[in-house]
């Protein structure tokens, strides 16, 4: 549970079990696991901003906990060099009912992608490396969660 930034892999089943056993009222655990897409690349390196990253993820989690009736939420993001197929990120939430859990998990990912200070660099099969460009679709996905009283940033 909680928010973690780490080089090590994580155990999805153990994380989901921990959320599911938080409280006898938990009726739904929804999770998203992001993987390194392998086509054409030999490695993905993730850089982050130590200090700000953890604060940003805590803020995103707190916003989700405030907007949906959740019993708990987990955000784990890996950094360092990862191989194709490796897990990069896990978001998971526990709630009484599935509706809130599905929505909150999607919200966490959309906000994480646009607000948490991580940067991906891909190494291609020919050895060249390039920074991944931000995608406009990620910004529009995050914007749809904006509420009238939410501050623009």
């Amino acid at each position, binding site marked *: 549970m909680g928010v973690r930034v780490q080089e090590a892999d994580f155990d999805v089943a153990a994380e989901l079990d921990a959320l599911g056993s938080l409280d006898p009222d938990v009726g739904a655990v929804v999770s998203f696991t992001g993987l390194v897409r392998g086509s054409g690349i030999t490695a993905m390196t993730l*850089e982050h901003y130590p200090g*700000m990253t953890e604060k940003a993820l805590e803020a995103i989690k707190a916003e989700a906990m405030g907007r949906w009736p959740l019993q708990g939420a987990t955000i784990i993001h890996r950094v360092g060099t990862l191989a194709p197929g490796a897990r990069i990120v896990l978001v998971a939430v526990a709630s009484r009912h599935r509706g809130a859990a599905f929505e909150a998990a999607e919200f966490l990912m959309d906000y994480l992608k646009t607000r948490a*200070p991580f*940067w991906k*660099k891909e190494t291609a099969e020919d050895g060249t490396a390039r920074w991944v460009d931000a995608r406009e679709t990620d910004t529009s996905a995050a914007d749809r969660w904006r509420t009238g009283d939410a501050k623009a940033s």
Partner: protein
Amino acid sequence: MKVLYFAWLRERIGVGSEDVTPPETVETVGDLIDWLRGREARYAAAFEDISAIKVAVDQEQADFDAPLAGVREVALFPPVTGG
């Protein structure tokens, strides 16, 4: 004041962080970038397209017009690509 650079901005400038003492006329993040640009060609090259740069002030998202008074840490970086 500490200035941090990430991703391709860090690579173009050649350092991940540095302590700087800009003159008093440098009042905002935008002023700081203009001042850095004037220092050396590598800064001018890194900040060529300002629309590609995001800002955090004391580890919170901020804008180019954010004031620098009392600020300990300014981070400059490309749009984030985690997840």
